[in-house]
């Protein structure tokens, strides 16, 4: 492992420059240039055709939806949209690409010259976007052999299901002047992009699934020198934590090299989850992709009216929407942070409120009981199998006093088991709270008789001892007693 300089010392001596290239896989139904199913995964090589296998004589045709997504992404990043642009072939030899070229864009990206503002701890940072271009993803390699890693692999196995998945590359201009906050701002930018992609509905943007990944470029220059140093590019970083970690590591590694009078080699590097990077391919002279215009695809010409139609489909910016909903729901910052930290919950809570529940109760169910169930099964909250309307229905029963929160959990069991509406489940499972004084009164009398010592304490004025009796009654009635009424009855009988 490389020598590292103390982070604070690097910051005293050097200015970092940051550049981020983010790849986003679109969630279109089909691939970029062919009609193969674009849903991720599946058995190997079940989603291929002559086009995405690059067989001779096959002809690609552009997925119009993917172009729309690209333009919408560009607009959401405040970019210009090219009125005319072409695809280009990026030539290289590697088994993840059968054609020996990647269909991409080169000097004519579909979107360019944008910017986003990123908020970090109350400070706003402007990130300039150089370009957004369209390309295709490559196949998936599995390195077989002795070590399972690429070095020492005997051979590679290739699955082309992912080959041809629409891929958007979002490239920043060099970002200067962030100083010690460079890694944190990079992380916040990634989080911003992820949230934006989800809001646009153009990508699942799950970094852990590789839907969104980042090539993080960083270089150091002597403090105040206003020049750009030699950069390293850490490839395919696929979590927010890793983006921050990889940049911190590279800054410390480069700082140590420069301080020792050595030079930084311009190269790609690989991030290791244990917290370090290792060298990949040296980029000096190696990069010559011999781009040329793709002859099999005609240019894309985004006319002004089409662009304006797409602009009209842009969602409310996520940060603005968050602020609006927080105010409408009356959530404290801390409560809202939980919502923001649970993917999908803001939409579910909003829909539940629309369906008639209070914001507080919607939040309680989605971030409590239902988040717990989603976590247990390792799935997204939206996939938990209960709809916003059903949650609102359950809460309506709680508000009406028909069930309590504990019984509501059993209603969710019933909903997940497909037993019908919340009302039907309460009836079928006999979950309604008993508030009939006859039944409750008998239970209270029995409890007083069974716990004479507790009853005496209550008679002596220790009202809080009633909790023990309520607990016993709830247990006996399997949670179905109306706790508030039980308490009243106990106090009436013992006063």
């Amino acid at each position: 492992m490389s020598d590292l300089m103390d982070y604070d010392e690097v910051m005293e001596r050097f200015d970092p420059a940051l550049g981020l290239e983010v790849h986003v896989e679109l969630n279109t139904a089909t691939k970029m240039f062919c009609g193969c199913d674009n849903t991720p995964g599946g058995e190997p090589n079940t989603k291929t055709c002559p086009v995405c296998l690059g067989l001779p004589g096959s002809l690609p045709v552009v997925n119009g939806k993917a172009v729309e997504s690209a333009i919408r992404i560009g607009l959401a990043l405040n970019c210009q949209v090219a009125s005319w642009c072409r695809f280009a072939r990026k030539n290289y030899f590697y088994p993840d690409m059968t054609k020996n070229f990647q269909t991409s864009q080169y000097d004519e990206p579909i979107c360019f010259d944008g910017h986003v503002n990123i908020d970090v701890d109350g400070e706003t940072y402007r990130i300039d976007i150089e370009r957004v271009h369209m390309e295709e993803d490559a196949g998936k390699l599995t390195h077989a052999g002795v070590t399972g890693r690429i070095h020492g692999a005997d051979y590679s196995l290739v699955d082309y299901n992912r080959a041809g998945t629409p891929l958007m590359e979002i490239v920043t201009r060099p970002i200067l002047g962030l100083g010690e906050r460079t890694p944190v701002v990079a992380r916040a930018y990634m989080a911003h992009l992820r949230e934006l992609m989800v809001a646009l509905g153009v990508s699942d943007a799950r970094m852990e699934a590789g839907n969104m990944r980042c090539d993080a470029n960083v270089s150091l220059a002597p403090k105040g020198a206003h020049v750009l140093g030699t950069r390293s590019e850490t490839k395919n970083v696929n979590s927010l934590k890793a983006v921050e970690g990889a940049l911190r590591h590279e800054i410390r590694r480069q700082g140590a090299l420069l301080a020792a009078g050595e030079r930084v080699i311009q190269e790609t590097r690989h991030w290791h989850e244990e917290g370090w990077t290792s060298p990949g391919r040296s980029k000096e002279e190696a990069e010559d992709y011999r781009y040329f215009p793709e002859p099999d695809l005609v240019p894309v010409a985004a006319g002004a009216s089409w662009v304006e139609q797409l602009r009209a489909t842009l969602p409310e910016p996520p940060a603005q929407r968050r602020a609006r909903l927080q105010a409408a729901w009356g959530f404290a910052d801390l409560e809202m942070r939980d919502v923001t930290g649970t993917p999908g919950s803001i939409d579910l809570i909003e829909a539940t409120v629309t369906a008639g529940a209070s914001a507080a109760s919607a939040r309680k169910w989605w971030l409590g009981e239902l988040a717990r169930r989603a976590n247990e099964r390792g799935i997204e909250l939206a996939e938990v199998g209960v709809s916003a309307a059903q949650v609102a229905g359950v809460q309506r029963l709680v508000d009406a006093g028909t069930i309590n929160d504990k019984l509501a959990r059993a209603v969710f069991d019933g909903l997940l088991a497909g037993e019908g509406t919340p009302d039907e489940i309460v009836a079928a499972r006999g979950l309604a709270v008993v508030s009939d004084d006859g039944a409750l009164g008998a239970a209270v009398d029995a409890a007083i008789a069974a716990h004479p010592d507790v009853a005496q304490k209550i008679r002596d004025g220790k009202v809080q001892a009633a909790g023990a009796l309520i607990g016993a009654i709830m247990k006996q009635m399997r949670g179905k007693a109306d706790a508030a009424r039980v308490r009243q009855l106990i106090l009436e009988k013992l006063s």
Partner: protein
Amino acid sequence: MALTTADVARLADLARIELSAEELERFAPELDIVLAAVASVSEVAGSDVTPMSHALALTNVFRDDVVRPSLTPAQALAMAPAVEDDRFRAPRILTEEG
């Protein structure tokens, strides 16, 4: 513009074509003639001729985002020189990134 044998060697390397020293010597002047022939086109094309990269004056040829049947794995792998676990088996890769 004269292509050197070093230029040709670099291009051959990028294209993964192995050329002998004799071939490099022979191809450099031959490719020069090809380039000169292409260059003569730009002499003919005046400023009134728009440069074009495509034979058709079409734009925005798009496909609807509708799934069409794929090949079966057996069909996809039929012409592969080597197959393992329904995947294409490729030679080991030493020098490039993963």
